[in-house]
């Protein structure tokens, strides 16, 4: 199952991205289209077969993984601001875009590069799981989890308020899915507690987090179209 899940996640994200092309061409909320494109691209690169191919072009020393990290940081930065604005949380917007958030992003980014450079990363392997793990690689992986976790933590309270509000039921369900995705992502902070032999659990959590986040975002879009259609029909 953990072999299929990444592909399923990719297929779902790609489908949503493609479905958003018409509205993006019309100029409606292009940022959401870009966010979905970024998520799809990140998922694509993270899957073993494409990863090995791309990293092969880049010299086979896992620079592909480094690129993936920064792609994810960027995705979370933009997605975080967009979601925080949507859910009306000025404090979350400030936390992500303000001095604190920028400082966090810069430090995480710098440490990511530092840990990468001091590690011997020869030999392509997806998730760098084939490398010899040491403290520096642990630090590198922790940085990769830290920034998305930080953004998720900023967003969760505002989304929760919507889930328990009197908003339309479809919107609440979609927000619930988004909340579930981000909570799973936050739970990945506990990955160091998962024994190495249970690596499948990390894969499961990572991809289901991405899957639920995408489904939640798409669900919000759907709830809007649904409400608009109902309005038109009743008018």
């Amino acid at each position, binding site marked *: 199952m953990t072999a299929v899940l990444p592909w399923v996640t990719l297929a779902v994200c790609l489908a949503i991205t493609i479905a958003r092309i018409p509205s993006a061409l019309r100029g409606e909320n292009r940022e959401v289209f870009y966010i979905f494109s970024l998520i799809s691209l990140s998922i694509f690169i993270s899957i073993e077969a494409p990863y090995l191919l791309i990293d092969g072009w880049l010299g086979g020393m896992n620079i592909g993984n480094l690129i993936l990290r920064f792609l994810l940081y960027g995705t979370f930065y933009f997605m975080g601001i967009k979601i925080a604005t949507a859910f*009306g949380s000025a404090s979350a917007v400030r936390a992500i875009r303000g001095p604190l958030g920028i400082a966090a992003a810069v430090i995480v980014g710098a440490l990511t590069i530092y840990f990468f450079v001091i590690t011997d990363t020869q030999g392509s392997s997806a998730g760098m799981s084939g490398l010899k793990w040491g403290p520096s690689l642990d630090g590198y992986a922790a940085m990769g989890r830290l920034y998305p976790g930080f953004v998720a933590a900023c967003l969760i309270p505002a989304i929760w308020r919507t889930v328990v509000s009197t908003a339309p039921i479809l919107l609440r369900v979609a927000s619930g899915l988004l909340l579930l995705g981000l909570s799973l992502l936050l739970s990945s902070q506990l990955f160091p507690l998962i024994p190495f032999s249970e690596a499948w659990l990390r894969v499961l959590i990572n991809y289901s987090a991405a899957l639920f986040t995408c489904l939640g*975002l798409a669900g919000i879009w759907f709830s809007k179209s649904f409400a608009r259609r109902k309005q038109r029909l009743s008018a």
Partner: protein
Amino acid sequence: MPLPSKAFQRWLHGIAPDASTADVCRIAGIKRTTLAQQLVRGKVAESTLVSISRGFHINPVQALSTFDLYAELRGDPVPPTPCELVSQVATIDLLRAVVDRSEPGAAPAPRLSEPPHPTSVRNWVDAIDDGELRHRVSDTTGIAPQNFSAHLTANRLPPELAIATSRAAGVGPAGGLVAGGLITEAEAGWPPNARQEALDKLSQGRLVTLAGERLLALGKTLRRQEQDHERTERIWENLG
């Protein structure tokens, strides 16, 4: 849905011994599946009983009173208090009365609209509340105060709770059923002009104060709805 289906079927046999279930549903204007489901579950909704009574030209209050739960409805109807009557005047009618009194001689106000109106339940409970009513109701029925409040906000009043509330307030048992929309004021035995007369008896000061209170509450509700709406729209605008 607290009418036991055995007792309900006995009652139904009493009023329409020869009618089939299909006939009963047709005459009462209810769905067959709805009735069948309620009978299978063993609990028949009061609203079903009321619809059937109306279909067979029986007073629903009398019909309800044959069940033990609603024994309090037996006997002559207890007349409503003036406060209860005024509470069942719709806010817009109340405002019309204010205008009419300030500018007498203009076109006569139309007849008061029938209860229930959009805030009937809360207005009724406020009208009979001596300050401790909600506590007493939650003590006797075991309903949590916040659930009671939720009913008021949703303008719902389950019949059983309506009876318990009127009992705790010491007013006639049918008032809450009118406010909750289960029965009409005529079915409850309220004289046809009772609400209009109670309204006319209010002094100008009381009337205007009451209208002000109603407007204030209405404004609060509308503002909350607008805020909820804005919140939803912002999410859709950014992510939709």
